[in-house]
Structures are given as C-alpha cells and as structure tokens.
C-alpha cells in the first residue's frame, strides 16, 4: 500500500496508479500460475520478483509512451509498484497454488479492489484540495482550495478518515448484530 499513497492527490493519478498496479497484478498472477509447475520451490520468490519487475518495467514504458505528463506526475512511484506487498502476496498466496483461470479472476478482483481504494483517496483529496474531479471544476470560481489535501499530511489524514469510517461501520454492524442476536434469544 505504502508508495501509492503519494500519488493519490488527484483522482486521475489515483486511477492511473490503480490501473498500472492492477495490470501488473493480473499479469503476474497469470504468468506465475501458468509457470507454477516449472518453478522449483527454492527459487520461487526470486522468480516471482523477476516476473513482477518485468511487468513493472513494461508498464513504466507503456505509460511513458501513452502520456509523458502522466509519467511525470507519477514519477518513480510506478517503479515502486515492485515492492507493493499486495502483488507479491497474491502471487505467493494464490497464483502459485491455483490455476490460470482462477488466478486471473483473483487478480481482477484484487485489482479492482485496489483501484477502488485508491480512487476513494484520490477523489476526496482532489475534491477538497482542488475543487475538481478528474480535472473537472466542480464548484464556481470562488472555491477556496484546501491545499493540505494535496500535501502528504492530507494523504495520511484521508486514509485515517476512511479507516475510521470503516471501523465505525464495522462497529455499528457488530453492535446491531449483537442486539438483534440478543432479541432473538429472548
């Protein structure tokens, strides 16, 4: 999760980063699961990293070819997808044990989830920080931007806010489950 936080200051960057990560995730899942029979146990991790690094490099060049502006905005953080625990984790935990089709689905699911998470951050930060969404101005001329949301502290605070929301929802659900449970007993 770590390095991607840095580039979620606009929804567009967040989406691009999410797509890039999802691409690497899916492709590496595919390759790893198709190679799983040929890779000896001892060198498993090494080959996984090799495969992931390859796809990250490919993504890096693809993005440069598509839009240099975007590449500039994402900077070195594209390369840092390599050390995203999620990808290696899925390769190790799922793709190396399951078939191609299932791994593909897993990669897709995880990838979409990851994109959603990044979008959650990016959307909030962009709306508050720039008053826009995907570059579209949402408010009238006079909107006062909340600059902090574009800065690193904003990233921390936004993430903390989302987690807080989820914690709260989980707590509430738990409480409700408890109370309904009790009622049914009585």
């Amino acid at each position, binding site marked *: 999760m770590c*390095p991607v936080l*840095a580039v979620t200051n606009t929804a567009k960057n967040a989406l691009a980063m999410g797509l890039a990560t999802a691409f690497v995730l899916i492709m590496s899942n595919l390759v790893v699961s198709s190679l799983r029979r040929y890779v000896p146990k001892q060198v498993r991790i090494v080959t996984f*990293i*090799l495969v992931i*690094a390859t796809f990250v*490099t490919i993504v890096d060049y693809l993005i440069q070819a598509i839009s240099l502006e975007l590449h500039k905005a994402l900077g070195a953080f594209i390369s840092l997808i*390599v050390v995203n625990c999620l990808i290696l984790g899925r390769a190790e935990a799922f793709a190396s044990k399951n078939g191609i089709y299932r791994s593909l689905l897993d990669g897709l699911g995880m990838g979409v989830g990851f994109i959603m998470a990044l979008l959650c951050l990016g959307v909030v930060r962009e709306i508050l920080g720039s008053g826009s969404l995907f570059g579209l101005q949402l408010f009238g001329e006079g909107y006062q931007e909340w600059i902090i949301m574009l*800065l690193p502290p904003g990233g921390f*605070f936004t993430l903390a806010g989302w987690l807080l929301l989820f*914690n709260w929802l989980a707590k509430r659900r738990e409480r409700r489950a408890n109370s309904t449970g009790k009622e049914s007993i009585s």
Partner: protein
Amino acid sequence: MNSDPLWAIFLNACLINNFVLAYFLGICPFLGVSGKLATATRMGGAVTFVMVVSSMSAFGINSLLLMIDAPYLKLISFIAVIASTVQLVEMFIKKMSPALFRALGIFLPLITTNCAILGLALFQTNKGYGLLQSFVYALGAGAGFTLALVLMAGLREKLELAKTPDIVKGTVITLVLAGLLSVCFMGFAGLSN
C-alpha cells in the same frame, strides 16, 4: 550530473522530504515497528545501514547499466542487487558480530521489501547523484527514517496508556500522528536554500 551541496542533500532527505512523512515510503515498517521505542531505534539503525549499503551498490549497478546502455534493466537489477545485498549483509553480520545480528537480525528480511530502500535507489538515480552524494543522500534518508520512527514510537508508547477511543486505536491513530508529524516537518521546508 548534479551539483547540489552535500549538506543540502542531507537536510533534504532527512527533514524536508522525509521518506516516510513526505514520500510515504516505508509506511509498512513505520506502522508495524513503531509501537515500542527500543525496537524502533534498532529498526532505524538497521534501515540506515541497509540504505547506505544498497545505495552504494545501486550506484555501482547504475553506472554499469549506463555503460552498457541498457536503462531498461534498471528496475530488475536494482531489486536483485538490493535483495542480494541484504542477504550478504545478513550473512556477514551473522559471522562477524552475533550480538549485532541478534539486535538487527529479525529486521533484515523485513527491510528487503521496504519500499524506502528501492525508492532511495531510484531517486538517487533520477537526481543524478554522484557516489559521495548518494552516500550522503542514503545517510540522510536513513537518519530521517529513524527520526520519524523514533518520534512516532515515543508518541505511541505514551498513547498506549491513554484513553484513546477504541475505534481509532491502532492504525487510525498512527496515521493521524503521522499526518501531524508530517505537518510539523513542513516547518523545515526551505531549509536547504
């Protein structure tokens, strides 16, 4: 080539653009290891050490890649070099100083997947730092990482005894603290002018 003075590089990496607080690099160990002060200090030391070593090797490998004109192998070779350096360092420390190994040992594997290390290698290459500059940059980044980690650990140890609401305990409060520390560190902006 880059002509930034060494002190500016150090300050930049350590305070102004602190790896954890400004680049979000190394968040995982930051959240994970900052609970106890003693562990945090040792982790900081270990990371600084690995940063310096792997920065030096990354500088070497990058020069080599530039020589054979194969920039596309940068990422793969960095990853490989960092992983093997950490492995080597681990073996070396184990042999040379068992005491040090006991102190740092459990952190070393964790560090391999620490994005701060790879980030450091990538940034120093992007900025075009020379050997000495890279060394100082790594030192600064390590010092900054340690500083953030230790400050955080102190705060978290204190909060452990606080009546923090259950709903924010753990990750949320740590992130808020990180955000506030990040705001504090904004005070250092412009220092390297």
